[in-house]
């Protein structure tokens, strides 16, 4: 009667986990993904030819196709309009799918199998317990076994040290932060990042192996392309950086119970009313992004994992009941970004290297956690991305026009352009940059809605509004001070605070919140048999830590709940 036991909408950080966990319980799962499937024999030219329809076999995965597409060139990979990584259709001749932002900012979300984990930096910290206990409708202890399962599956381990982490540790220790050797952070301190990246290849330092050989072997080779497309590994499922395309998706396919259909944008949740009048989900309607053909599929249970923008959009465009909280309560860690420029001689004295080498190692390898405030983490990118995040992207306008701040631990605040930009960029290899993640207060006014007039081929398009609270901004200022003081302690000669636009959206969370739109099992209150397994079910911004691991832990738990409630 049904096409499957479960349909999962979206194959990113959450959807791929739900699919694998459900399939391992013996359930038949169909996954619909709006974007392309990279590294699969069914789609040898995924950005220019339609290719196949479904992939159901682990043996479809092809590392040569994967490495051809993931070519690591930053503009080719990460251009938001036309890159391999963008939120848009597989066909790169076409424009991306538009989201309306009427403020400074950008939304870094990707379509495609693996979703945004294709370019995430693999940071996999747990939530701060203080942001969960007594706040969420479930406890931190309830999450711990699921955290452990995901950490072991990805797997997660602490980042290795390279010169930039060495410099980070030197600065934060001098600034007074203490080592925090834990996964459960209850006190402030520094630690290497718990990252979903395989440990370094054990032969990395052995000159008997060439880099080309090492790149075909298992283990991280510190190539520095976490964001531009990691290629270290002998097969798709052994690539070092563990986005779900290379971790949970191969495991899901290995069960033999999962079929994935990329290039399929879900445009409607289909529902029926039961005898008692309650609404329940029975299927989905989707649009083939190459042919425009509309298909429908049915299942006993639907899991929506389209992300924090598309899940509420899909809900609204499906005409499902709105209890006032659909799309509401968006949090985003209200980022900031700071950088320190160092002198070669100082670096030789402190860490024994003449440069920071921002292009070597994990993109982000170490952090200071401050529960109640947020996190700052060393995060270094290739020059195109680094230049714009550090000098070109600001809520504060131009540094040249900003008011002097004599007591601030930064020299420049805001955009830097002209000859001064060029002089700073000449020092790219001696510049260490940090991403700051704020414990973001949840506000009802921050939201995803759909435009009343504008549509794309998939229906009315999303509008994303985000304005931080005064408390969030105080925390962000505090973080910027801590971060810049540690750069001063490390010996930076020039310190830049970009004052990143508030709506630079990387860690969107909590637009379909647990306790408001979904219950503690992540099943929608108003539509039975409809579950959500992405960042949108978070009750809040989990205190500031990167959200993916928590989404993956919850998706694992949700799979258990689905099996228990509907398939036991």
């Amino acid at each position, binding site marked *: 009667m049904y096409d499957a036991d479960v349909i999962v909408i979206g194959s990113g950080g959450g959807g791929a986990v739900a699919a694998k966990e459900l399939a391992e319980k013996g359930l038949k799962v169909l996954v619909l993904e709006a974007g392309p499937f990279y590294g699969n024999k069914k789609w040898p030219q995924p950005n*220019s030819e339609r290719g196949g329809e479904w992939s159901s076999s682990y043996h479809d995965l092809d590392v040569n196709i994967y490495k051809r597409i993931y070519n*690591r060139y930053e*503009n*080719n990979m990460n*251009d938001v*309009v*036309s*890159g391999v990584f963008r939120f848009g259709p597989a066909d*790169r001749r076409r*424009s*991306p799918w*538009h989201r309306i*932002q*009427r403020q*400074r*900012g*950008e939304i870094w979300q990707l379509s495609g199998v693996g979703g945004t984990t294709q370019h995430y930096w693999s940071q996999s910290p747990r939530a701060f317990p203080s942001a969960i206990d007594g706040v969420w409708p479930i406890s931190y202890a309830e999450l711990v076994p699921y955290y452990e399962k995901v*950490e*072991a599956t990805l797997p997660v*381990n*602490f980042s*290795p*040290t*390279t010169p930039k982490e060495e410099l980070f540790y030197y600065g934060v220790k001098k600034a007074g932060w203490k*080592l925090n050797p*834990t*996964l459960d952070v209850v006190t402030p301190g520094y630690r*290497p990042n*718990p990252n979903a990246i395989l*440990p370094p290849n054990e032969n*990395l330092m052995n*000159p008997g192996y060439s*880099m080309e050989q*090492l790149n075909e072997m298992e283990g991280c080779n*510190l*190539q520095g392309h976490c964001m*531009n497309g990691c290629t*270290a590994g002998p097969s798709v499922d052994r690539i070092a950086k563990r986005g779900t395309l290379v971790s949970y998706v191969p495991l899901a396919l290995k069960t033999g119970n999962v079929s994935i259909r990329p290039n399929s944008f879900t445009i409607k949740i289909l529902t029926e009313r039961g005898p008692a009048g309650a609404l329940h989900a029975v299927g989905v309607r989707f649009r083939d992004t190459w042919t425009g053909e509309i298909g429908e599929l049915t299942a006993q249970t639907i899991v929506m994992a389209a992300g924090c923008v598309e899940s509420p959009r899909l809900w609204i465009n499906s005409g499902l009941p709105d209890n006032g909280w659909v799309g509401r309560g968006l949090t985003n860690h209200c980022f900031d970004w700071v950088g320190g420029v160092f002198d070669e001689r100082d670096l030789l004295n402190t860490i024994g290297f003449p*440069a920071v*080498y921002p*292009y070597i*190692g994990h993109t982000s390898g*170490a952090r200071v956690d401050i529960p109640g405030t947020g996190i700052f983490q060393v995060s270094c990118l290739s*020059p*195109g*991305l680094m*230049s714009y995040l550090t000098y*070109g992207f600001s809520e504060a*306008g*131009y540094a040249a026009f900003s008011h002097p701040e004599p007591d601030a631990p930064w020299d420049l605040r805001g955009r830097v*352009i002209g*000859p001064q*930009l*060029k002089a700073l*960029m*000449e020092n*790219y*290899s001696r510049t260490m940059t940090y991403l700051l993640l704020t414990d973001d207060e949840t506000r009802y006014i921050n939201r995803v809605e759909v435009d009343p007039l504008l549509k*794309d*081929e998939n229906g009315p398009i999303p509008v994303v509004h985000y304005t931080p609270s005064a408390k969030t901004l105080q925390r962000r200022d505090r973080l910027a001070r801590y971060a810049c003081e540690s750069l001063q302690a490390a010996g930076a000669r020039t310190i830049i605070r970009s004052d990143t636009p508030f709506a630079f959206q990387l860690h969107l969370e909590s637009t379909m919140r647990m306790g408001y739109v979904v219950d503690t099992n992540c099943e929608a209150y108003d539509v039975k048999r409809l579950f959500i397994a992405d960042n949108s079910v978070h009750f809040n911004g989990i205190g500031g830590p990167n959200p993916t691991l928590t989404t993956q832990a919850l998706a694992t738990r949700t799979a258990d709940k689905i099996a228990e409630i509907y398939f036991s």
Partner: protein
Amino acid sequence: MNGYEEGIALQAASIYAAQMNPCIRETFCGLAALIVPNTAALPQLGGEQAIGAVELHVQQYIIWELDHSLALMSGLSLTVFPLAAPTAQMLNSAAMQLVARGWETCPPNPALWAISPFAALVPCDRMRVLALLEQLQFDLELLPPPYQHDGGYVKFVVDYLNRAVMFGNYSEWPAYGPTRLDTPVCRRLYGFPIGWRQAGYPGIADGYRAFLGFVLYIERDQGGYQIV
């Protein structure tokens, strides 16, 4: 892509470049030169460092990006709305408003004024135009759609213009040479990107022998773990 297809692609790219009208081209040259100028006149930024965004054709990158970023349903079909022309018009309207109010610090270049008022301004006045635009200090009625009366969108795009020039300049995009305006899957690299050389980035690499050890490590066995 075979040689024949590559030929078609190159032709399409050169037609696209030829269609850029002088006003749009000069306006975005003015933007690119403001953000990443040629610095041959500055001894500390001479040699290879002197090359600026205009020599790297970054103005074409901005035009291409703006013209390919927005597709919406219009009537029965999905329609691409090119944004380079209205965005250039917005910058020029703002430049004219700056001058009409007497807020410029130097007289604009008369030779360029008729083509692009924005490009005719000296760099610090161009920066002033962008700053005042994002502060919504100009009459938004005088801006073209989609920016007219949409201050939020003006803020978004002015911020975007700054970072897009930097990303164009300091990424590998200029090295796509004659294929740079082509559809992305047809672009080919011609040499090492100059922006990467200016930054001292060695380019993409398979790996680095830079492992300095672990501060912490997770050891797992039979379902448990230990931090060492």
